[in-house]
């Protein structure tokens, strides 16, 4: 059984089981309030699933792409929860959770704010039904996203699917994502040329 967390768009928490599927899933499309929601969602998801933290075998988490501040809340929570139960973190590219369950090729698009989007291109699902990411995730102006495949524009990341994808990757010995946040943007900061004059 896995706990699954994603805050790359809204806030989502789920408890999933390889055989029994999604046992509990809570999700809010609100693109703010991640830090406020995450605690109640964690407690509520475990309660609804009737699962104690010690029964979990790991914590799946969406590594983005997503806006920095919210994205970090979920990753911080996942890492701390995993540390608390001494089980591993299972990092997943959030777009892969959106593509999981589809069979046809497509381009997943999510909001990156500042009039930009994150996108990833997927081929047809593989023989196990797992997503095959061919390009991305990448950052682009909406007009620059490829249009040669069906666009899958998603306002939220299905966190139950994210957990089940983690279970499937684990079951088939497939690699997880890298354990680093997919910010895709550098911090907003410019090196100043030096102190400005104060006298004319």
């Amino acid at each position: 059984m896995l706990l699954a967390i994603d805050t790359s768009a809204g806030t989502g928490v789920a408890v999933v089981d390889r055989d029994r599927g999604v046992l509990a899933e809570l999700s809010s499309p609100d693109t703010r309030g991640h830090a406020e929601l995450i605690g109640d969602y964690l407690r509520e998801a475990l309660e609804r699933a009737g699962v104690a933290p010690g029964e979990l075998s790991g914590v799946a988490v969406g590594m983005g792409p997503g806006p920095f501040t919210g994205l970090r809340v979920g990753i911080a929570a996942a890492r701390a929860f995993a540390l608390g139960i001494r089980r591993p973190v299972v990092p997943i590219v959030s777009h892969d959770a959106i593509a999981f369950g589809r069979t046809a090729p497509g381009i997943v698009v999510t909001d990156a704010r500042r009039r930009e989007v994150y996108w990833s291109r997927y081929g047809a699902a593989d023989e196990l039904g797992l997503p095959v990411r061919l390009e991305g995730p990448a950052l682009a102006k909406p007009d620059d996203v490829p249009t040669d495949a069906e666009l899958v524009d998603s306002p939220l990341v299905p966190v139950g699917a994210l957990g089940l994808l983690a279970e499937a990757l684990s079951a088939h010995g497939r690699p997880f994502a890298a354990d680093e946040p997919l910010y895709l943007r550098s911090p907003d900061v410019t090196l100043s040329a030096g102190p400005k004059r104060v006298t004319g």
Partner: protein
Amino acid sequence: MTGPLVLGIETSCDETGVGIVRGTELLANVIASSMDEHARYGGVVPEVAARAHLEALGPTLDEALERAGVRLDELDAIAVTSGPGLAGALMVGVGAAKALSIATGTPLYAVNHLVGHVGADVLRDDRGELELPTIALLVSGGHTSLLLVRDLISDVELLGETIDDAAGEAFDKVARLLGLPYPGGPQIDRAAEGGDPRAIRFPRGLTAAKDLDRHRYDFSFSGLKTAVARWVEQKRDAGEDVPLADVAASFREAVADVLLSKALAACRDLGVPRLLLGGGVVANARVRELAQQRTAAEGIALRIPPLSLCTDNGAMIAALGAQLVEAGRAPSGLGFGADSTLPVTSIQAA
């Protein structure tokens, strides 16, 4: 010593701090700083700090537990800074603390960063009790606040704070215009060695009679920074050498003077014969020296926690959490967020 075993998490600025205490006994105080990453920018970049917190928090937690020799399942409570501070940085600690609390079934206390600085005093090795009421002067790169503390967990009042730059920020900015690296405090301290603190009379912000009504206990360092810049530019424009030691010593004197003048005025006005210092600027040799001289002259008891507990750290958050647990306070709910402007009257967030 006995008392509740509490783990504290602090991520309000550029230090990722995890501390563990048992009551007033310090068991571990581990800090990972992203200061070096900010050096090239001349100041703390919030997004850089927040990214560093996310990467440092796990290793810092592990190291603190190992140093303290305790297991997570032994903890009586977890405490976390919910504000004030940088919102994005605070959220890393808040998200992690909530998850850790639920994963381990440990009660969670959301506490105030500034009151935490006062709480650090209970961890002193000499076991001297924090006597109350006390005036507390908290000075760092992010804060310059003067508090009246009647009770650590129930009665803290903000007397004044900076209306523009924090004192630590002023050190960084003046260091920069003098061509010295970041962080400015230790650089200015070094440059001031052998300099004459009375060589240049730089302004003391908000100390004029007209300001004392509205801003008796408030601070302003923006005008001081500009005055230093103007003075240095005039020298350079005239083709003269800038006497670095004198400028550094005179600037540092202006900061220390105004900090202590206002703190001691609060002690006198309010009849409180105790002053506590906290925050990273306490590392400044002249600030400490002047505090010792002036409090001694006025018969005011001075307390300065060890430097490792003055800069931002998780142990002070744990210590404040332990005080709340001992007083029988209920844990915070899970709905609190990061509050970048949390007032000092909110010692514990609901």
